[in-house]
């Protein structure tokens, strides 16, 4: 029988060992003895107390830190990504607006209608793409298998990016009077915020809570429905003016 490496047993102690190791430990007296010795040693380390700071500790720390806060304002957050998303949407809306104004001077009713239609199409295209990307994140997240700990750092980073874009699209939908799109974007934003604000490493129970929260809202289903409706709108021939 091949015995376990000490490194594997250390990982097992911290709950990060590969599967199947526990079965081996049950069957192997030598490895079990090694495991027991390691456990005993590391549990001893737990038993070493750290001194407890005095009751006024927080007050002392605050008194010391507070005057220095005045001298150092929080550094601004890098905004390049948000700016890029905002710029593209604003460009889209501005283009439609400028065209609308220039067309307003001698405004034949048909031109005005076509500009409104154009705005709607631009919004549909941009939001459709946004929903596809959101759907990909949600699907990946919901398909992540249950484990003692789940790292969602990547999904959180993508959710953060989507939140910025989502806010702009939601406001644009609001200005355009597109209530349906605005509502789905509102729901989506709540879910994205929930993902972004969760701990990066989720324990099994936390992970289940997050997944249940997403599933209960039925957001993935709603996103898919709206996405397919938008695809239909994109594919539909322009209405005769």
């Amino acid at each position: 029988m091949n015995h376990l490496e000490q490194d594997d047993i250390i990982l097992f102690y911290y709950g990060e060992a590969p599967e199947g190791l526990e079965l081996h430990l049950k069957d192997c007296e030598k490895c079990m003895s090694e495991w027991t010795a390691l456990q005993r040693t590391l549990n001893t380390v737990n038993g070493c107390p750290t001194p407890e700071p005095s009751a006024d500790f927080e007050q002392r720390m605050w008194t010391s830190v507070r005057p220095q806060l005045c001298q150092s304002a929080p550094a601004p957050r890098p905004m390049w990504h948000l700016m890029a998303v905002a710029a593209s949407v604003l460009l889209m809306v501005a283009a439609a607006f400028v065209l609308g104004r220039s067309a307003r001077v001698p405004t034949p009713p048909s031109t005005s209608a076509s500009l409104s239609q154009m705005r709607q199409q631009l919004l549909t295209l941009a939001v459709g793409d946004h929903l596809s990307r959101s759907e990909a994140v949600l699907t990946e997240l919901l398909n992540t298998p249950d484990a003692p700990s789940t790292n969602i750092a990547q999904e959180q980073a993508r959710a953060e990016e989507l939140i910025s874009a989502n806010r702009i699209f939601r406001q644009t939908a609001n200005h355009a009077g597109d209530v349906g799109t605005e509502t789905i974007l509102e729901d989506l934003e709540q879910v994205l915020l929930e993902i972004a604000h969760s701990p990066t490493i989720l324990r099994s129970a936390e992970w289940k809570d997050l997944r249940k929260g997403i599933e209960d809202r039925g957001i993935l289903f709603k996103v898919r429905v709206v996405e397919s409706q938008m695809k239909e709108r994109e594919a539909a021939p322009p209405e005769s003016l």
Partner: protein
Amino acid sequence: MADNDAAVVATIIGGDRDAYRVLMDRYARGVFRLAYRMTGNEEDAEEVVQETFLRAYKQLPRWESRSSFSTWLYRIAANYSIDVARQKSKRSETSLTQYNDDGAVVDISQYMKSNEPGPERLLDSSRMQECVTTTLNELSSQERTAFVLRHFEDQSIEEIGTALGLSANATKQSIFRAVKKLRRALEPLVSPVKVTS
């Protein structure tokens, strides 16, 4: 709590500096415990607490809620603790000789070299603590940080790697080395006494 922290951070960024007191009240003791385990003394640990909160304040808008506020804060504390530990190690060489509460010299190397545990040593928990402290002091700053974050703060290998700028494998190796050193030092003290008839 995470949502709550986000709301407090938003308030601070909005200009209410005094709201930072809420986060300090919430996490200063946790940061102190981490810093104490990293630096090994209260004075340094308090310095780490103050500097951690100052650094965190300056970087608040960069937190971005990607991780929990405490994880992010502990990462700052761990990195600053490494700086403090490095400065200290430059100033003084570590020695196996320690002083107990009575000021008497305790040479813990006798425990580390011996493989024959005696019952009197098993019962002496204060010496055990000294031995743990000394062994932790002898770890490299990387080994110590990786071990403290894994063992006491329950952070994953991936999180620790991110905090220390190490690959997952390098992080594991640091933890393995730390645990092996602790075993070498402590096992003679904690192994059950074999009674021979």
